[in-house]
């Protein structure tokens, strides 16, 4: 499709590819992780060619996720730095949830919810990675005690639960806020979308004549 010049670049191509790599890894990790977590979900292992393949693939996907997420951090950390506005925005979270715009402060490129997802994952992914390494039996079991591994699996599953909950939040928010999916698939949003959800960001772009994702220097 042709892109209207009226539209703004919400996410660069690199960021989008990076995001979907991360997302893909995350989904696979969730499916395989849940399969190993609860017997009722073990059938999910069939998606990976059986339990052995799943067990072998999970940590490699995890390693890829870590690298991929590092890329996202490099690209997005600046825009996710917390600001005073975030507190105000959070204070108005009821209105946000009710789709009401009035009384909700203007938001930059990312709102506090998005920042929460970003930083939550930035914390959980390395925790999952490190605890995952400890329990990656094939290569790393000799370097830790079994007791440390026991703690690691517990922490790993707690962290995974956290990540899954954050991910549900993230996915639902994308579905709920129309236009967000397109922002991550095609990369563009309308100016109206930006006005509605990231007004400060729109103002900054507009002020510098940038078409996104970042204002011109």
């Amino acid at each position: 499709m042709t892109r209207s010049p009226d539209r703004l670049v919400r996410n660069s191509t690199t960021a989008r590819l990076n995001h979907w790599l991360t997302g893909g890894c995350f989904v696979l990790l969730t499916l395989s992780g849940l399969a190993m977590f609860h017997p009722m979900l073990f059938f999910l292992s069939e998606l990976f060619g059986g339990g052995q393949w799943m067990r072998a693939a999970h940590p490699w996907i995890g390693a890829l996720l870590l690298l991929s997420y590092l890329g996202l951090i490099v690209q997005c950390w600046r825009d996710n730095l917390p600001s005073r506005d975030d507190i105000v925005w959070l204070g108005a979270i009821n209105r946000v949830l009710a789709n009401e715009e009035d009384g909700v402060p203007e938001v930059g490129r990312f709102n506090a919810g998005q920042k929460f997802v970003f930083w939550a994952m930035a914390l959980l992914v390395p925790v999952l990675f490190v605890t995952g390494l400890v329990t990656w039996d094939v290569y790393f079991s000799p370097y830790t005690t079994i007791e440390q591994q026991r703690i690691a699996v517990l922490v790993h599953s707690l962290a995974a639960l956290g990540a899954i909950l954050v991910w549900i939040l993230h996915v639902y928010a994308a579905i709920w806020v129309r236009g967000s999916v397109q922002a991550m698939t095609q990369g563009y949003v309308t100016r109206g979308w930006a006005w509605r959800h990231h007004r400060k960001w729109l103002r900054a772009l507009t002020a510098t004549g940038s078409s996104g994702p970042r204002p011109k220097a």
Partner: protein
Amino acid sequence: MHMNRRQFFRVSGAGLAASSLVALGFSPTPALAETRNFKLARATETRNTCPYCSVGCGIIMYSLGDKAKNVTADIFHIEGDPDHPVNRGTLCPKGAGLLDFVQSPNRLKYPEIREPGSTEWKRVSWNDAMTRLVKLMKADRDANFIANNAEGKVVNRWTSTGMLCASASSNETGYITHKAMRSMGMLVFDNQARV
């Protein structure tokens, strides 16, 4: 937390809500738990005696096949003989590993000769080896046999060739070895009783 299986089941039931996908046709694999097949079921049993120490434990050797014409009996398992009054089925670490002696990669398979000054073995036929050896033995006996000692007494001995006899060989082997060697007048003749 200490749960028995039933409690475990009930608690796990709480997770049912999340597993409605089961209904979509992803049912768990059927509950199969077969122990390994009993590997001796129709093997041929042969009674024998452990060849290591002098306890003389009874053993049972299990071999492949039923002694039919077209099968080579290969021993694949050895266990203690429970009827034996001394070992009553038990075996020591050596006896329990007898199979690895029978099947040792270092078993000799062919007659060989190492020539004087050589650094290697050369495979030969039994007949060639025996012919050569017997010539050497007879020549040595004929040359060095002592019929009478210095005092003229009849001594009829052959002391230039000797033999060490196996202490793990059977009585029958020991008997024929003694009979054959002594008939030649051999005196340098001993076994492993001492070491």
